[in-house]
């Protein structure tokens, strides 16, 4: 791990992220119903459940893409339920998407540099009033972005537009991009989906490396092998509710989980 990855100490036991009695309704449908959980510093927490369980809605609530109907979300102990999505990364929450969203006509390095926070050059007038400062920050951001691309084995394509990437490479790019913001916690939405076995190993290794630097992960995943190998704890959702939690082995043996996945046929 190079200097590009900011190390986060797990010195505090205050949850990095917490949901308290969160409810989200879409008209008459209750997509997330009274869900509460904590994400502890330094852990990799898995969130699994059958399709339609409400996992991605829960992710969107945590990331601020949608707001809860009721309940509260805390980020580093601070209530953020009403806060806009673009402010949450500044509080240390980064996310990736189920279907990766690279910026196709920007190069890989531009994609990663975009995630740098607090850049002077993102202020219109600063580009004319303090160009030397903008240039210095850009140079530092480019160096860090290059290191992050190296971390995810995409250095070779750094100056190509992101649209040339395969599905798996797009997920790696998203990982590098979100790392650029020095998050304390990263929400990963199905990082294994549509990725071949070789690249999946690379993704698992990188997540483990990054986690060892102290960054916390909350991971939605259907690939149970990946969940078992990576996650310290697993939450199971079904029909918008939190069903149970435990280690991967514990939840796999839980009859309620078997019922939820197999509809009672097991």
């Amino acid at each position: 791990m190079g200097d590009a990855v900011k190390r986060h100490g797990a010195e505090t036991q205050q949850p990095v992220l917490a949901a308290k009695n969160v409810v989200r309704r879409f008209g008459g449908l209750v997509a997330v119903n009274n869900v509460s959980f904590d994400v502890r510093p330094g852990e990799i927490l898995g969130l699994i459940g059958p399709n339609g369980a409400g996992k991605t809605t829960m992710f969107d609530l945590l990331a601020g893409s949608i707001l809860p109907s009721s309940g509260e979300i805390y980020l580093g102990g601070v209530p953020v339920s009403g806060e806009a999505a673009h402010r949450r990364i500044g509080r240390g929450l980064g996310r990736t998407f189920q279907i990766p969203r690279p910026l196709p006509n920007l190069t890989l390095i531009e994609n990663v540099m975009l995630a740098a926070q607090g850049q002077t050059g993102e202020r219109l007038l600063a580009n004319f009033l303090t160009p030397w400062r903008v240039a210095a920050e850009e140079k530092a951001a480019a160096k860090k972005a290059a290191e992050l691309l190296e971390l995810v084995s995409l250095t070779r394509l750094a100056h190509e537009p992101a649209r040339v990437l395969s599905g798996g490479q797009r997920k790696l790019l998203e990982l590098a991009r979100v790392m650029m913001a020095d998050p304390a916690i990263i929400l990963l939405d199905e990082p294994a989906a549509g990725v071949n076995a070789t690249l999946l190993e690379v993704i698992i290794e990188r997540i483990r490396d990054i986690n060892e630097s102290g960054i916390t992960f909350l991971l939605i995943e259907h690939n149970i092998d990946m969940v078992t190998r990576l996650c310290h704890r697993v939450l199971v959702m079904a029909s918008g509710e939190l069903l149970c939690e435990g280690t991967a082995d514990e939840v796999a043996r839980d009859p309620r989980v078997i019922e939820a996945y197999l509809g009672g046929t097991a």
Partner: protein
Amino acid sequence: MIDLVGYGAFFLTTALIFSLVTLGLNLQWGLTGLFNVGLAGFVAIGAYTSALLTTPDDPARLGGFGLPILIGWLGAMFVGGVAAALTGIATLRLRSDYLAITTFGVAVVVQLVALNAQKLTGGPFGIGFIPRPFGGLAETPLLFNLSNLAIVSAVTLAAYLALEHLTRSPWGRVLKALREDERAAISLGKSARFYRVQAFAVGGAIMALAGALQAHFIGFIAPDNYLSILTFQVWVMLIVGGSGSNAGAIAGSVLVWAIWAGSGALTSVLFAPEQQARAASLQIVAIGVMLCVILLVRPNGIFGERPRRVRFGKRTKATASESGS
């Protein structure tokens, strides 16, 4: 020969004023993806603002205030920028098609105000006696046209360099990100509304400056100068030059204005005076045909952002073997 040079200077001055409007549109659409079809309104706001600030006092209407031309231009940019920002705050949450309808409505409102608010704008009679830079040289048209060309060239060059600087800056990178994928950009901490309003305001200010330049170049403005045909012309200029490229915005403006002016001259030669009003429609036909040809031959325009060629020949194979997904 002298007449030809004089006409060339006149032609280029007009084309460069158009290119300023196109540069403003390129910031809004080419860089940020904001579908503004009401740009004629912002050009009009700039023209009227500068005219009111700089013309001599007229008891028949508000103003003028007899201020220096430079103050008129700065005032035009300020008022145009504020008008665009207010429009942006009210509308930029709309999807592109609804944004187009709304901005078109804004332009119609501005044009109708210019036509009817006689105490402010002179109504259908417009505003005359707008001071012209180097007005003292009007007796020698060649020198007058060359002087105006020099000043308009300098303003256009300054706008071009400033926009190029912004396009390559982190600010420009955020605008491109919002154009490409708003949700991804928001997830990376960028406020879509904040940046879009800025881009819309800066683009509006540049358009207003162009309106002011034109007003002082011609010396007279009227509501008919700001009909939707102006919006059509500028959009064609941007598409022909290449959306996303500042150089393309200028090249497209010169080329389209050349065809517009050339076809106008041709119709005046080919058609009898009583048929020329109807024959003027052929100018729009000529522009339309050129637009079709350009889009067929170069879909991204002359200088448009084209897909960058991958620099190593085995990329596809390498990518496939790396991911297999």
